[in-house]
């Protein structure tokens, strides 16, 4: 079952005094299945946040269509079942963490004891119980991100839209939030998250959509997308074997000196050739290992084919 379907979404923003139109989304299409984590990746300014804003009805749509839980973009009744974490969340800095959650809960129509119980649970979950009575103006970026996730979960939503959930968090915080997101999926929740931290997407997402320059250029399961991505290898040699470097001549190898070693980096296509040359010279190979086949490769490849991101809105 499809929870979110975005079909050929187009968004123009008028800019400047003459209200000249700039096309930010040029036909974005993808869908999110129930119960999966969908990663929405792309460089800054590619249109990730704008897509979310259009889905939630913060901005109108110029063309195409959005269906969220069977309703059109921005439908108020659907929002009862949605949790949203904005990018770089800013909250009312005069409220305390607890007060913010109370206000957000009230907007969902949750009141009384049920709300208090939920607030306790969530503060515990995002590890913020100690700061519940502290005004948000005194929160660090990481703390704001945690409270932001807590407010997105206040209504125990079916569908979570998280815009850069890992930004501003230290590694421990990132791990905690990652676990929290995975836990939500285990409960059967559907999640779409945007990120440019590719390793997060790799470790969490079932499916991925790559957006570049206002277009989704690839979607699919991670394995599928990474199939035709080449892997780079790194070979470590003792730096006494400097003459090897000259012999590599016509091979496409990146050479660099690092802490008493020579590091060769090359594509898997020429792996056997490099090994051949190096061995024939009797050089001492300390190690040879593949650099992880990753989204980054896909990203770089797609970026090369498409004309980059546009101005950040």
């Amino acid at each position, binding site marked *: 079952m499809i929870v979110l379907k975005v079909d050929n979404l187009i968004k123009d923003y008028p800019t400047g005094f003459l209200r000249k139109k700039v096309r930010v989304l040029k036909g974005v299409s993808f869908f999110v299945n129930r119960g999966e984590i969908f990663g929405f990746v792309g460089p800054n300014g590619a249109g990730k946040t704008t897509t979310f804003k259009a889905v939630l009805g913060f901005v109108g749509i110029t063309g195409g269509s959005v269906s969220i839980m069977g309703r059109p973009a921005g439908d108020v009744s659907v929002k009862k079942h949605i949790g949203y974490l904005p990018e770089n969340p800013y909250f009312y800095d*005069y409220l305390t963490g607890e007060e913010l959650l109370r206000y957000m809960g009230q*907007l969902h129509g949750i009141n009384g004891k049920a709300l208090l119980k939920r607030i306790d649970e969530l503060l515990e979950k995002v590890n913020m119980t100690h700061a519940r009575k502290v005004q948000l103006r005194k929160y660090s970026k990481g703390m704001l991100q945690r409270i932001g996730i807590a407010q997105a979960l206040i209504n125990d939503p079916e569908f979570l839209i998280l815009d850069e959930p890992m930004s501003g968090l230290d590694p421990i915080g990132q791990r905690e939030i990652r676990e929290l997101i995975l836990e939500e999926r285990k409960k059967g929740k559907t999640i779409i998250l945007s990120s440019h931290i590719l390793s997060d997407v790799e470790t969490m997402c079932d499916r991925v959509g790559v957006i570049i320059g206002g277009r989704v250029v690839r979607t699919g399961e991670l394995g599928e997308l990474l199939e035709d991505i080449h892997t780079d290898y790194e070979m470590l040699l003792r730096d006494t074997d400097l003459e090897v470097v000259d012999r590599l001549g016509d091979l496409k190898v990146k050479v660099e000196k690092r802490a008493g070693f020579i590091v060769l980096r090359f594509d898997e296509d020429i792996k056997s050739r490099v090994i051949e040359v190096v061995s024939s010279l009797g050089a001492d190979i300390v190690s040879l290992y593949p650099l992880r086949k990753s989204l980054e490769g896909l990203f770089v490849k797609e970026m090369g084919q498409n004309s980059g991101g546009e101005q950040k809105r």
Partner: protein
Amino acid sequence: MKTILAVAYNTFVEAKRDRVLYSLLLFAFLMILSSLIFASISAEQYNKIVKDLGLTAISLIGIVISVFLGTGLVHKEIDKKTVYNIFSKPVRRYEFVVGKYLGLSFTLLVNTVAMGFILFLIVLYTELRHGDFIRFYYGGNYFMEFFKAIYFEYLEFLIVIGIALVFSSFTTPIMSLLFTFFLFVIGRFSGDILIFAEGVKNRVLRGLLEVIYRVVPHLEKFDVRREAVYGGSINPELILYTTAYAVIYASVLVFLSIIIFEKREFR
């Protein structure tokens, strides 16, 4: 309705934490200072001056709060992107606008009642000190006119908040501030527009002035200080009429803000 109240309450909390209520201290300070300055004049005069000054100060402080907080009311939430938190929840745009309006109106209500109370205590004290206790005791209506004047001032705030809200929903705080202040001044002198129009020979211009006169808020209607201070009565019909005028005018302004806000994009 619960959503509107939640938004309104949060607006009130924001104003409170922004230390808006500190204006009460300023008010109390001003009043005590003026009592000291005018302490040497006759009792009769003295009371009138304190009352007149007090009512003027309540009006001035209330207008300043209405204009300054009103013009940031909606814009601030868009600018600081807190609207994303609000509208990702099941909140309709009109509920937000009405909630914001009611929140600031309530803030001013609390502020005005508190300032009125401070002024009442000062006036009471001066009345008693100058031995006018008998008049105070027997003249049941004596203070009523005074309270009515404060009530009228509050009605004026309701309109000014509405004006600020309209501008706040489509332009920057600085522009809203200018527009609101401009309209406030015109509103305070709206009667003069009509007098001026009568003297104009050009029919088109006269027609235009008459239209302006009908559209701008007639804020001078809310100034009943003379009646309250120098004796005179503010009859129930006037109270009813002025209340209706303020409520209808403010409602139209809120409605206008909603229409503008419905179309706003939160980029």
